[in-house]
């Protein structure tokens, strides 16, 4: 973990207000798991909290990482206005990512994502694919014009898409897909990241699965386990909690209450 002035190498608007940023710096060499995130300083003096953003993909040789950011509020907006060639102040890598060591070649993996929760699954999918695993993606979007990275994921496995308004794929949510008769839900590992509703559903649905994981979001201050802002309660009646930034953002399904 370090704080680094990283250089913005390229920027692309994938769909309106959704940007793909490629950053370069030594921090990249410290990334050990897909699903880890970075905490980016907003280049505005009046915004004091960093913004946590998942690492979407990593190129260790070039010391580059790709982030996909939705410019939703003032902070992400300002980060996405950074010009190519300028720098970003990045803290990371933070947190613990998706465990994959237990998987063996040829096994089947289910990856479930919703909207802006999809980016952290990309590096994971690349690694799993390299390891010879069979991948099925189930992705939910609001509507057709919100879909991004479809080709990228189709190159790695089967992609099933739902949209809230039915403008592409199946009308409904990822749950609609998972529940459909022909869908093969059997998997040696399940990984998910999405909005709260999706995470809650997956957390519940696969709480007995030996290798099902979700990546959570929570409002953060320090991003490194020092302030206890970002906790989620453990689902073991202990009354204790875990820190999303340090113990997560990836948790085993059933481990915490979403």
């Amino acid at each position, binding site marked *: *973990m370090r704080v680094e002035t990283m250089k913005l190498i390229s920027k692309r608007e994938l769909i309106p207000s959704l940007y793909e940023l490629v950053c370069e710096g030594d921090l990249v060499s410290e990334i050990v798991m897909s699903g880890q995130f970075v905490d980016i300083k907003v280049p505005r003096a009046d915004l*004091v909290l960093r913004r946590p953003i998942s690492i979407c993909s990593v190129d260790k040789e070039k010391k580059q990482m790709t982030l996909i950011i939705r410019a939703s509020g003032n902070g992400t907006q300002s980060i996405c206005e950074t010009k190519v060639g300028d720098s970003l102040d990045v803290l990371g890598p933070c947190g613990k990512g998706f465990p994959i060591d237990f998987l063996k070649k040829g096994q089947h993996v289910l990856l479930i994502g919703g909207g802006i929760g999809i980016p952290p699954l990309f590096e994971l999918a690349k690694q799993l694919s390299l390891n010879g695993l069979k991948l099925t993606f189930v992705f939910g979007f609001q509507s057709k014009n919100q879909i991004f990275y479809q080709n990228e994921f189709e190159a790695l496995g089967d992609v099933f898409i739902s949209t809230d308004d039915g403008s592409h794929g199946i009308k409904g949510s990822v749950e609609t897909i998972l529940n459909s008769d022909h869908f093969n839900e059997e998997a040696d590992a399940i990984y998910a990241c999405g909005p709260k509703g999706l995470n809650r559903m997956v957390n519940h649905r696969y709480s007995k699965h030996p290798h099902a994981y979700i990546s959570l979001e929570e409002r953060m201050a*320090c991003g490194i386990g*020092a*302030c*206890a*802002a970002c906790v989620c309660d453990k689902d073991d009646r202990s009354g204790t*909690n875990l820190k999303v930034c340090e113990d997560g953002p990836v948790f085993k399904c059933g481990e915490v209450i979403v």
Partner: protein
Amino acid sequence: MNRLAVKLPGLDLKNPIIPASGCFGFGEAFSELYDLSILGAIMVKATTLDARSGNPTPRVAETPSGMLNAIGLQNPGLEEVLKTKLPFLSQYDVPVIANVAGFSEEEYVEVCRRISKAPNVKAIELNISCPNVKHGGITFGTDADTAYRLTKACKEVSSVPLYVKLSPNVTDIVEIARAVEKGGADGITMINTLIGMRLDLKTHKPILANTTGGLSGPAILPVALRMIYQVSHAVSIPIIGMGGISCVDDVLEMIMAGASAVAIGTANFTDPMICKKLIEQLPNRMDELKISSISHLIEETRKEAHG
């Protein structure tokens, strides 16, 4: 002579830079970023008698040049702090200031008594000002009599000097400061957070699950400076100042207002390297402003305040 050094009751500080309580945990995460031994001291997270899991989330929200927090004193409890947290810090050459909180006088007294015996705890910071937990509807730090009595009780049992941390959410902070001085406090730390709130435009409801939270960060700097100035003119015990510091000029401005050392809270979130940077930048900036040493600046300010 080290021109950054400051001597305070119980504390021999290499420099006046101290991470503020609650913004640095017990140092673990920051120890991965830099050597904690460079710090003047460390104010660790509030310790209560029993472990506390704090308030429901969301616990933080952002505000213009500031933030709100309603952590609710989450901490592993006195036992665990004594067993693992303080020993972890003992590997560093840095005095620890133990932040003590409680929900009754007895709890405060018990924690003070025991935590002040830990070898690396050189001072206690009595947190009578957490805005996120209540004692009979009022925080200990907003009533002068309560503050006086609590200070006295804790002072009696503490084997290290006692600093009392004041709340800014009062009509007359000087009255509270005088009360804790009378109660036997060896020093004052100030300010804790102002009470604030944000609402979610979509739900029309407060963002924080706790409804209100404590405002910290640059936004509160002028309030902190004012209160430190007023209190330093009214009491003779030293003040460790905090509230909104984000750069080396803020450090010096707060010392000029009457502080003898400063604590850095929210700025650790904006820039986790801030304490290290401040320590590194101080000498240069002091040269530019013709300040020979921090202790000289403190002395000069005290003379100005007390004649």
